[in-house]
């Protein structure tokens, strides 16, 4: 294996790795200033992002291309590699990098007294590296190992404020459920290996297309069990119900910037893993498989998986929304909302058509900005001394109109109000579901009804922020202040980094919301390639 040919396409990853090493080096040199280390992370992700965007074929950056156009979306004939560059993978790489970029940009404004900048940014970059590798995986084991890179990094990220018991508890919970899921994933992979004799996703796809009798044809139960284990294992990352319970506690307990990364980044990786793993059986395994040892009917594998995923999707949306309804804490409410959003995204792979995948991808793109931005904003607001409860946000909209409007915009986008990116993505996603016809229309209806339900709690936050007066500050004894003065917010805003990140979020939410053609066009063509890829 020629090193240069191996390293060339991985330039973005290498840039990140270099960033990590630089950060660790500076740590050793006792240069631990947040701004310095953070800038390195921002720069690294920024550069990597440029490379990825260039690889996607965005002409202004053509100079930065690291991949010849021919090696994107290649066709295989025998000899399946462990990794392959797909347009959709590149799109996801860009999304992941954007998420990391946003988080590290915002984290530039971390409070000075907070320690652990090197480990924070180092792990952030490593986690991102794992995500980038997930995006190019072509092999199940490669995929799972890459996921583990991110998983371990995120366990540690969640617990990196090691003197915060909430944070450590979150890390512990995430670790246990994560390790369990990993085990289940590998177990599933082993079963699939037993059935197919390979763990390569494209090989499995080819077996399905060629209908050689291996895999689903010969070992229907093994295949079904294998995919079942994999679905459950990956559902951990994607926070599907009922595998979501950890997420709420972890999103709540983790440092909020890390939460933003979890919600905006690593969870999306789980969803993309779903795309990678399940697209082949859903679309290409035409082998008629006996449904189970207990029934004699012969059914196709694809619809069976689709129905299962549809149930999971509906369950995820609904439970997430219902639980968010009564939630009193802002972060937990956002966490539940994030869970329900995962349900929408799952619709994409459930439907399995290129439009649906495009819709889901756009939804994921939107979610990075909406939810990531929201958590970043929550982190900034809590730095002002605003408590964790939604009610603590009373009157914020009128006292800090800019922050209030930005947050309102994110919430409206999550609720799917037009002229926001959240609307466009849901519109495309549900359109695609309707376009696929059949029972997917019901999926679209369930999704839309759920998004209606979600309006309840988003609107509640808006109400608290804009229509209610701030509660009187618990006054220090002896101070004489008239009546019901709201708590005094610190002068200044979020700090430049965070303000820039939130500003970027707002711009994207509105810009893509108003004119989505550019993003949507790229995503659509990538999804189309992805569906046809290697076939």
């Amino acid at each position: 294996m020629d090193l240069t040919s191996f390293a060339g396409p991985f330039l973005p990853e290498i840039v990140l790795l270099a960033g990590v090493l630089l950060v660790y080096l500076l740590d050793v040199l006792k240069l631990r200033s947040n701004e310095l280390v953070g800038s390195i992370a921002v720069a690294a992700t920024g550069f990597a992002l440029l490379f990825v965007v260039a690889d996607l074929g965005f002409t202004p950056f053509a100079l930065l291309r690291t991949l010849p156009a021919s090696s994107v979306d290649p066709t295989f004939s025998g000899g399946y590699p462990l990794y392959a560059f797909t347009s959709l993978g590149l799109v996801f790489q860009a999304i992941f990098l954007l998420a990391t970029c946003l988080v590290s940009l915002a984290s530039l404004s971390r409070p000075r007294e907070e320690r652990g900048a090197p480990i924070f940014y180092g792990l952030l970059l490593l986690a991102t590296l794992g995500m980038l590798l997930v995006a190019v995986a072509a092999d199940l084991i490669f995929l799972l190992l890459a996921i583990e890179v991110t998983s371990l990094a995120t366990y540690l990220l969640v617990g990196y404020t090691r003197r915060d018991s909430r944070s450590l508890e979150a890390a512990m919970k995430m670790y246990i459920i994560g390790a369990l899921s990993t085990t289940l994933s590998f177990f599933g992979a082993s079963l699939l290996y037993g059935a197919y004799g390979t763990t390569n996703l494209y090989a499995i796809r080819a077996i399905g297309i060629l209908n050689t009798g291996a895999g689903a044809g010969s070992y229907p139960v093994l295949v079904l069990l294998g995919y079942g284990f994999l679905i459950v294992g990956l559902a951990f990352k994607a926070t599907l119900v009922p595998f979501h319970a950890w997420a709420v506690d972890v999103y709540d307990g983790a440092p909020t910037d890390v939460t933003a990364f979890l919600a905006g980044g690593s969870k999306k990786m789980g969803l993309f893993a779903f795309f990678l793993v399940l697209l082949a059986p859903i679309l290409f395994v035409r082998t008629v498989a006996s449904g189970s040892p207990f029934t004699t009917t012969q059914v196709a594998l694809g619809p069976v998986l689709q129905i299962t995923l549809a149930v999971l999707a509906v369950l995820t949306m609904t439970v997430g929304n219902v639980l968010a309804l009564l939630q009193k804490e802002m972060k937990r409410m956002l966490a539940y909302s994030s869970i329900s959003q995962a349900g929408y995204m799952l619709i994409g792979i459930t439907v399995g058509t290129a439009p649906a995948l495009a819709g889901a991808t756009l939804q994921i793109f939107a979610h990075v900005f909406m939810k990531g931005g929201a958590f970043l904003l929550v982190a900034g607001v809590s730095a002002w001394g605003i408590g964790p409860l939604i009610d603590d946000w009373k009157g914020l909209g009128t006292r800090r109109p800019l922050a209030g409007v930005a947050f309102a915009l994110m919430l409206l986008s999550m609720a799917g109000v037009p002229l926001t990116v959240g609307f466009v993505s849901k519109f495309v996603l549900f359109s695609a579901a309707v376009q696929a016809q059949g029972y997917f229309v019901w999926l679209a209806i369930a999704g839309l009804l759920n998004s209606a339900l979600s309006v309840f709690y988003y609107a509640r936050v808006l109400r608290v922020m804009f229509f209610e007066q701030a509660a009187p500050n618990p006054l220090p004894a002896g101070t004489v202040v008239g009546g019901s003065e709201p708590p005094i917010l610190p002068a200044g805003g979020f700090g430049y980094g965070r303000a820039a990140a939130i500003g970027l979020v707002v711009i994207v939410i509105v810009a893509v919301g108003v004119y989505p053609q550019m993003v949507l066009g790229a995503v659509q063509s990538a999804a189309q390639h992805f569906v046809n890829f290697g076939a």
Partner: protein
Amino acid sequence: MLPLLSITIATLLAGTVATFLSGARARWVALGVSVLFILEVALLFLSFSGWPGYNGALVPGFSESESYAWIHLSWMQVNYSVGVDGISLALILLTAVLNLATVVYSWAESKRPAAYFGLVLLTGLGCFGVFVALDILLFFLFWEAVLVPMFFLIGYWGGPRRRYAALKFFVYTHVASIVMLVGLLAIVFYSGATSFDFSSVYASARNLAAVPQTFLFLALFFGFGVKFPIVPFHTWLPDAHVEAPTGGSVLLAGLLLKLGAYGLIRWAVEILPSGFHNAQPVLFFIAFLSIIWGSVLSLSQRDLKRLVAYSSINHMGIVLLAIALDSSLGLIAAVLLMFAHGIVSGLLFMSSGSVHHTFGTRDIASVGGITPRTPALSTMIMAGSLASLGLPALISFPAEFTALLATWNGLQYWVFIPLGILVVTAAFYLWMMQRLLFGPAKGIPAAAHDIPWYEGAGMGILVAFTVLFGILPGLLVNLIVSSPIKGWPGT
């Protein structure tokens, strides 16, 4: 030709932004924008090319059409397409008039005036957009765009239970929009329409089989119906109206309810003829239910605004009935009724608002005999009530007459229901006037004085239109007739 529609949208958008930013001078900016809006609508009228006999527009029957690519995917063609025909033009006129009247009426708004007037203009923009949009996504976008300002208008400037009302309004209408959206999407994808454009949907949806058409129609009907509002999905309306500030109520009753009816005509009745035909019994049933329910409930209300709100349900029920008749006369009646109800309910809500400002309560039972103290206000209330109960020479009369005539033509003796309800309608208005305006004075605060000039002016604008179109309904009818509705010549 000038892209007049886009210019108007841009004007309103820019006006809204300017109003938001203009602080204390917001009302002047808003007034300027409203006047500009009216002038642009006047220009639209002048350049309207859909008059009978003309067929040169981009989409047949639509004048001033514009279309630009927006989202073009292999399977989804969304354009920015706008255009007007007679029906939308009539409602656009209503929008412009109500916008101006609301701005004038709310002249003294002191609670964050910039935001208030901005939101009023934004509502106007949304409604204008709905009436001109010829693309499903664009339509839905404007449709939803109306929700947000109204949510804030109710939620921030409203009465004591404003938060509840705002939330209820938002959730109800949002759920409805969603069902409507699914319906519209399904129409596109099931019919194999090449784009989201009205023309394309119109051309292909009619070819769908009757059964899917029926399902789609019912979905759309639910979506539009909640805005109507149809019984039993109406309970958001009284709450929203009662809690909304006067300007909000005016726009809510005058414009928002019309969106549902307009949507039903444009996006359901026209493009799903067989579905419409099959669903007619349902529509009739709901229409009669709404008519009866609205007026019977009006009888039992003590709150002036609530009374007017329920009477809106009744009136919109007649609109629905007229639409459901599936006849040209019915359609004309429906649009006339919409226009009339927009003006008249606006007037009535303004009156109720003034009653509230002047006497501190809207409870009909606790205030009475106000006429000697506030003759101008009483006159307005009387004008509004009499117009609303369908008195000749006022705007509702030709509309109701046409509607009832059309009902007779279509349904024969069923017309007894709306006819009988006319008596009940008269009863609750008369009863309200008897208690509020006449009789011995009671419950009038010492400081109460007649309405200020701007409230009078706001209502005066509406009264002027009430009388103008009451005497010359032909102006509107000629406009409506020029629309490419089925059964019309040249369609």
